[in-house]
């Protein structure tokens, strides 16, 4: 017997789900229009451009020391200086004002402001500065461990300036609406050298309101899914939600997306699942839960066929064949 909505243990408040909610209708991207941005990003990254080639997801400009890729499906653009990606012998990065905080190492005000300025200059110069909803600067984290797992040392890694976006006043969630500028520290450790870049943000050309599903309907795929062949008895197992964020789901850069529909990004845990050997297991999950009612979407002319599903491999090659 599957879980029901009343079995859900809420460890966080679910956002209020209105009866109707906007769907953002997205403009068709034109990858060719990104060619100027691609060229300027190549300059910013000090790339020697050997030429432009078609790749499965669009086209790439650059050479063997770095490339700029443009995604046909979304107009997204990604760039890197591959020499910089391999320039260090290990994870350590020397930021002058990084300090250990409650949530790992964080940059000080001086570096944060300097990197933010650099990011804005790069976005202006590459004509990719959109109206962003939120901006922060985060550090990668690393730790060095001995053979027994004891932490010997830890510190900050690459810094990332992150921009997020919204449509109709609702956050765009998921993988397909963000800008990241990844910096390694310069010699002074305050400013940065751009190592990687990623920008995906589809333009919104219109919006329309659609009806939302009930929570029972929305959570059904999560409640009824199987769990790796484990025995899951709703009377003893617990399905808990630890975080839930409402937004319009922006799909990955390699997906052609006509509209961004409302969804919940939920995280949680299944506890008390029983393995075949009798052990109890706890596993985590992260899942997007669609909120728009399919009939309401369809009546707005926004129905989707779902993804193209590939066949399964039924014969395998043996090792060495």
């Amino acid at each position: 017997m599957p879980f029901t909505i009343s079995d859900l243990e809420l460890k966080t408040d679910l956002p209020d789900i209105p009866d109707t909610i906007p769907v953002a209708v997205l403009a068709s991207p034109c990858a060719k229009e990104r060619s100027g941005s691609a060229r300027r990003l190549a300059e910013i990254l000090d790339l020697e451009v050997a030429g432009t080639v078609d790749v499965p997801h669009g086209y790439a400009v650059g050479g063997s020391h770095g490339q700029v890729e443009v995604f046909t499906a979304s107009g997204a653009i990604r760039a890197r200086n591959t020499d910089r990606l391999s320039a260090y012998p290990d994870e350590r990065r020397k930021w002058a004002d990084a300090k250990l905080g409650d949530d790992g190492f964080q940059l000080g005000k001086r570096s944060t402001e300097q990197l933010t300025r650099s990011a804005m200059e790069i976005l202006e110069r590459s004509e990719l500065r959109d109206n962003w909803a939120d901006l922060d600067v985060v550090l990668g984290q690393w730790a060095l461990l001995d053979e027994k797992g004891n932490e010997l040392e830890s510190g900050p890694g690459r810094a990332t300036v992150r921009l997020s976006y919204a449509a109709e006043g609702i956050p765009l969630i998921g993988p397909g609406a963000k800008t990241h500028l990844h910096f390694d520290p310069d010699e002074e450790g305050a400013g940065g050298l751009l190592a990687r870049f990623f920008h995906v943000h589809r333009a919104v050309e219109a919006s329309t309101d659609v009806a939302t599903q009930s929570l029972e309907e929305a959570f059904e795929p999560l409640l009824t899914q199987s769990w790796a062949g484990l025995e899951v008895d709703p009377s003893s197992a617990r399905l808990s939600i630890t975080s839930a964020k409402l937004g319009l789901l922006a799909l990955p850069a390699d997906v052609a997306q006509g509209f961004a529909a409302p969804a919940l990004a939920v995280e949680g845990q299944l506890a008390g699942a029983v393995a075949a050997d009798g052990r109890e297991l706890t596993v985590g999950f992260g899942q997007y839960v669609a909120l728009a009612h399919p009939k309401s979407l369809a009546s707005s002319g926004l129905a989707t066929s779902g993804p193209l599903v590939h066949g399964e491999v039924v014969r395998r090659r043996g090792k060495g064949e």
Partner: protein
Amino acid sequence: MAKYVGSWWIKDGIDGRRLEAEGFASTLGGLAEFDWTQNHGDSGVVESDFVTTSGSTQRSDSVDALQMSSHGSANAFTIWGGSVTTGEAVDFGKNDLEFFATHACDLLEHTSTNSVGRWIPAFERLHYMLGFHNSSYSGGGQNSRGTWFAMYAAWLYYGPLSWLFRIDMPIREAWAEANEIVEGSNVQWAYLRAEAPGAPTYNERLREAESTDPVSSRSFWTARGTC
């Protein structure tokens, strides 16, 4: 000599989880430099694939690199009807395995109270475990995670644009770039790698010929970043 790659997946109603893992192996399998030799799904994903079991062949260790899609926690990842935990006889790389990549949530979480060093006993001659510090997602277009990982780790080096230029990056960067495409910024990619004198791994490429394995006087590095 070709490197062998494999895919292990448990769908649990979301076919994208199969596509994630198979995308990695099938993309590489299209190159002359790799052979896709192992593909196991749902009830075919068994404990003896990952845990040293008397009388069984550990199929995960007959490949050089694999990608897996299943649920997880800091201390375990699921196989069909059970799990593989840090407390079991996991010896990745006793034969072949160098790179183990998984979608499993939280597997490589590293905090002051729960060190990712709990997975170090699983490193026999393994070079990298690649996964996540927190929850990874399904159901929102994550299907191509493995395809992107394979493309950045090797395919775009050997692939059709190589007559003009090659895209060449360390495997850790390929994992980060792949997950930046398919995950939201709230998700944190992570890895745990071993290295030893004479066996550096920080800038190791999947495309390269098999390198010296880190086996003695080892140190371990973990890192994480925003997707």
